[in-house]
């Protein structure tokens, strides 16, 4: 791996963000709306319940973590879409750039953009609604790490899908988090789900995060074992995602799709 080539991919994203308010605004606009909406919703629900249960960490905390996951995933896909939109594949892949360097550049770009969203969410939720996620201490780290790894993995799979099916497949990508959210139990315990949905949930790392978040809010004890399992699952997902991307890229080189990407398919 050459550091300069990965840096080039990151630098491209920086140049684009620096010169374009239309790209900067979405980094925090949607998460701000979500924080405000779910913050007030949680406050309202608190007025109906016994004083023991607090919806702010259970609901607003869950939304914050879920939005972080979405930002990570979209950080990867959006960086990739920049090459789709500017029809830049030929220039990049006819250069010495390796697939691993390209993917590393997408991931680092995503770290930067998702951190902006996370900081905005933490500031808003803490100042306006008194959500103090930091009070949970070090246990937050595996929560964020699992969501980060799974967001990266899903982002890479999504880019593979667009690389395989062509630019028009972009619309498949945006609803992916919404499709997953019912299975991972962002807002409700997994026991609420039918058995088949619980089976799906067991292979999705975020479901362990939200189960543990609820456990922490109600009795203060997350399960180290299930968080470790989630981390392992997410790490495995990253490896699988990279394998899928490399296979898709090699197929695109074999068929000539990289050179004629705007044609979408060569068959």
């Amino acid at each position, binding site marked *: 791996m050459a550091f300069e080539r990965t840096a*080039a991919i990151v630098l*491209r994203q920086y140049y684009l963000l620096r010169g374009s308010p239309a790209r900067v605004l979405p980094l925090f606009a949607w998460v701000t709306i979500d924080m405000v909406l779910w913050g007030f919703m949680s406050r309202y629900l608190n007025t109906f319940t016994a004083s023991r249960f607090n919806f702010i960490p259970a609901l607003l905390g869950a939304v914050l973590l879920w939005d972080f996951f979405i930002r990570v995933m979209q950080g990867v896909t959006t960086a990739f879409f920049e090459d789709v939109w500017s029809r830049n594949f*030929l220039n990049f892949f*006819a250069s010495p750039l390796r697939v691993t360097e390209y993917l590393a550049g997408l991931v680092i770009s995503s770290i930067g953009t998702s951190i902006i969203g996370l900081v905005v969410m933490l500031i808003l939720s803490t100042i306006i609604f008194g959500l103090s996620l930091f009070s949970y201490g070090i246990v937050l780290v595996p929560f964020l790490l699992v969501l980060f790894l799974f967001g990266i993995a899903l982002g890479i799979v999504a880019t593979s899908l667009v690389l395989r099916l062509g630019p028009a497949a972009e619309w498949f990508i945006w609803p992916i988090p919404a499709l997953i959210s019912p299975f991972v139990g962002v807002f409700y315990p997994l026991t609420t789900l039918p058995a088949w949905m619980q089976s799906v949930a067991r292979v999705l790392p975020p479901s362990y995060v939200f189960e543990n978040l609820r456990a922490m809010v109600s009795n203060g004890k997350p399960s180290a074992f299930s968080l470790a399992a989630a981390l392992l699952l997410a790490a495995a997902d990253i490896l699988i995602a990279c394998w899928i991307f490399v296979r898709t890229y090699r197929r695109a*080189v074999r068929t000539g799709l990289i050179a004629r990407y705007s044609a979408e398919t060569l068959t």
Partner: protein
Amino acid sequence: MPPPVLSVRELSKNYGSLVAVDGISFEVARQEIVGLLGPNGAGKTTTINMILGVLEPSGGSIRIEEVDLAKRRSQALERTNFAAVYAPLPGNLTVEQNLRLFGLLYRVKKLGERIEQLIHEFGLDALRHAKCGVLSSGEQTRVCLAKAMLNRPRLLLLDEPTASLDPATAQEIRVMIRQFAAAGPTGVLWTSHNMYEVEEVCDRVLFLSHGKILLEGNPKTLPGEHGRETLEDLFIAVAREPLALARA
């Protein structure tokens, strides 16, 4: 004798039963400009795409300065660069940003100095902060050529590099590329449909038809060797009567 900058052996590409490139072999030496000519669909761009590593050959080998492209893709492409009318640089980045980005991809030493040098050589001083998407097609071509020179490539692939330039600018670019090839260890593979340009620039031409090399030789003497007055007449004959020429 130094090894060729490009060595292509028995290169082929099939799409199912369609044979796009049919076992071609050729070399490009240092300081040599080779014209890859042929009618539309002859296999020129397919050949260039395979040399650029964005299309996997069905058979054969490509070596760039003795480096096997199939086995050491990244090292081989570090010695290569290209400009093509169908591959403009990202229009949402400025000229300078694009040169910096691609300079990093090609790991150019003293990148800042090299960018300044190329901006000056290609007359891009006034455009350095302009986004490439707002440039005229001629200006975009100059930026693409500047990018193609960034890493001082040993093998330079130019696919119709002057297609969108006015005659005066095209002439300047041709002179510049000739000087670039003559001054260093670079070899150039050039495609063009402008036979006047090919005759002026190329040391040798390869005529491709239906994926095969039909004719090869000096562009100044080749037409006479095949009973044609000009290179353009020969091109038309290749496009219309390839079999007759192959038999001759």
